[in-house]
């Protein structure tokens, strides 16, 4: 059987940054396995600007950002396989792989970094009544068609969901000559960035209809119109508010799900809230030697954070192979009162770095609130926040020195502004 010290599953920004960091940490024998025809992952279809402000201090497009990492992987001569899919990972870290160059083979890895990214929530998960005509696409599929294949799916568009991919596609299709009639969002607020609402919708007078959803789809064979209706606080359509909008295309931008079938087959424990693996501060999963980073771990909105997190996973994987860190005292992290989850889910209070960045999302928007970290009933850090929104991932640094010796759980909460 082919052997490798570190196998990296996925050649997107997470896999690339993990590979670079592992090599910098001294590991030689690394293999990146990517099912697509190019490295770079989803960034290849994200051709708009806005990537890398944190890392490079300039606004790159997705392909430009990816290329900086691809160039380093090439310069370091880190091996990779394209058009090659990992079909299975077993509990002993044996990967079953099929590809153009390899055929069907097995690879024994000493360590694995999971970097498979995420996929879009499909329409089936949404439960929209009406017919199932052609002309309904996920926003990401439309993004690939327009940006990679130069094909415009339609001329009269309605978008359901105000996530950033949907907003970006509203602008993109408008500039390509389509008319975007409306973006409907079932929540009373948008999950997209303010900047995207202004520059992708307001710039083109595209209405954003909040507390509104699609209640019916009409058309035989091909979509002809959709019915929108306002919803009440319980997200139930309000009778009498229906409006029919003729269209030939409906885009669904309704969220992303980490892609974890392989993690499950490897025996990795998943977090019910994130849908990704449960990890420690070193991004180690529940299976020794298996690490996770990027969108497979939890859905990110800034690729800069993906690269940083993946760097940590790559270093940890190299450390695992070269000289294992000895385990110390485990402290669980958990979210409560508005904090939906944390990544990592636990830290090693002895082996951890001096500061570990804990990331999470809140469940609803807050103004004038504060984020708090508690060890039991002792407040160990409080960070005031003018604004918190579910669309923006929060980063909360925890200092090793602040963790009390008798602490076994740190709880993160939102402290709401006094009324």
């Amino acid at each position, binding site marked *: 059987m082919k052997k490798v010290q570190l196998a990296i599953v996925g050649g997107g920004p997470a896999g690339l940054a993990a590979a670079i960091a592992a090599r910098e940490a001294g590991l030689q024998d690394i293999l990146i396995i990517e099912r697509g025809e190019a490295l770079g992952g989803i960034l*290849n279809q994200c*051709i*708009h*600007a806005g990537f890398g402000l944190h890392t490079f201090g300039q*606004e790159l*497009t997705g*392909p*430009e950002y990816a*290329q900086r990492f691809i160039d380093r992987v090439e310069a370091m001569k880190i091996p990779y396989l394209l058009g090659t899919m990992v079909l299975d990972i077993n509990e002993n870290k044996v990967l079953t792989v099929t590809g153009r160059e390899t055929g069907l083979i097995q690879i024994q890895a000493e360590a694995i970094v999971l970097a498979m990214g995420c996929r879009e929530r499909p329409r089936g998960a949404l439960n929209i009544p009406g017919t199932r005509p052609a002309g309904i696409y996920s926003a990401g599929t439309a993004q690939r068609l*327009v*940006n*990679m*294949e*130069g094909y415009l799916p339609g001329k009269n568009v309605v978008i359901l969901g105000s996530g950033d991919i949907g907003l970006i596609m509203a602008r*993109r299709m408008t*500039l*390509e000559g389509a008319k975007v009639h409306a973006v409907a969002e079932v929540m009373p607020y948008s999950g997209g*960035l*303010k*900047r995207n*609402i*202004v*520059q992708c919708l*307001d*710039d083109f007078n595209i209405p954003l209809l909040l507390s509104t959803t699609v209640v019916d789809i009409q058309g035989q064979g091909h979509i002809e119109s959709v019915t929108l209706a306002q919803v009440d606080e319980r997200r139930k359509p309000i009778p009498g508010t229906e409006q029919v909008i003729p269209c030939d295309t409906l885009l669904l931008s309704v969220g992303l799900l980490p892609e974890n079938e392989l993690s499950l087959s490897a025996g990795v424990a998943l977090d019910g809230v994130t849908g990704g693996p449960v990890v420690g501060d070193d991004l180690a999963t529940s299976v020794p030697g298996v690490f996770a980073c990027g969108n497979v771990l939890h859905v990110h909105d800034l690729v800069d954070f993906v690269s940083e997190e993946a760097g940590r996973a790559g270093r940890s994987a190299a450390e695992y192979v070269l000289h294992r860190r000895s385990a110390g005292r485990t402290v669980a992290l958990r979210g409560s009162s508005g904090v939906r989850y944390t990544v990592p889910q636990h830290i090693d209070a002895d082996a951890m770095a001096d500061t570990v960045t804990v990331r999470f999302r809140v469940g609803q928007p807050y103004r004038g609130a504060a984020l708090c970290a508690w060890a039991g009933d002792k407040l160990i850090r409080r960070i005031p926040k*003018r*604004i918190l*929104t579910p*669309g*923006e991932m929060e980063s909360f640094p925890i200092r090793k020195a602040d963790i009390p010796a008798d602490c076994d759980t740190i709880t993160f909460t939102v402290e709401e502004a006094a009324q």
Partner: protein
Amino acid sequence: MTRQLTCIGCPMGCQLTATIENGVVTEVTGNTCKRGDDYARKECVAPMRTITGTVRMADGRVISVRTRTDVPKEKMFDVADAFNRARPKAPLHIGDVVIADVCGTGVDVVATANRE
């Protein structure tokens, strides 16, 4: 004259009101920090945008492109049109000029991907 706009500087999204007299912003209110003031002054007088898109190459392949820097917002559709008319030849690399001085803006359109 006053104009309402949403600041894009951070997720606060402050609702700004700019007072404009003779084409000059004389006052900005509603901002929480200085960035909101700067944004309103620029956005009301000379709004600028980076435009990205795709161009079909002479050999039929698609390549992503951008304006190298911001161009005036009112040129957005003209620039998108120019993307549709260009037919550049391979090879192209990140930063190579695909359209020089697009629509008289003085800004070049450059490739954002590599095509050998």
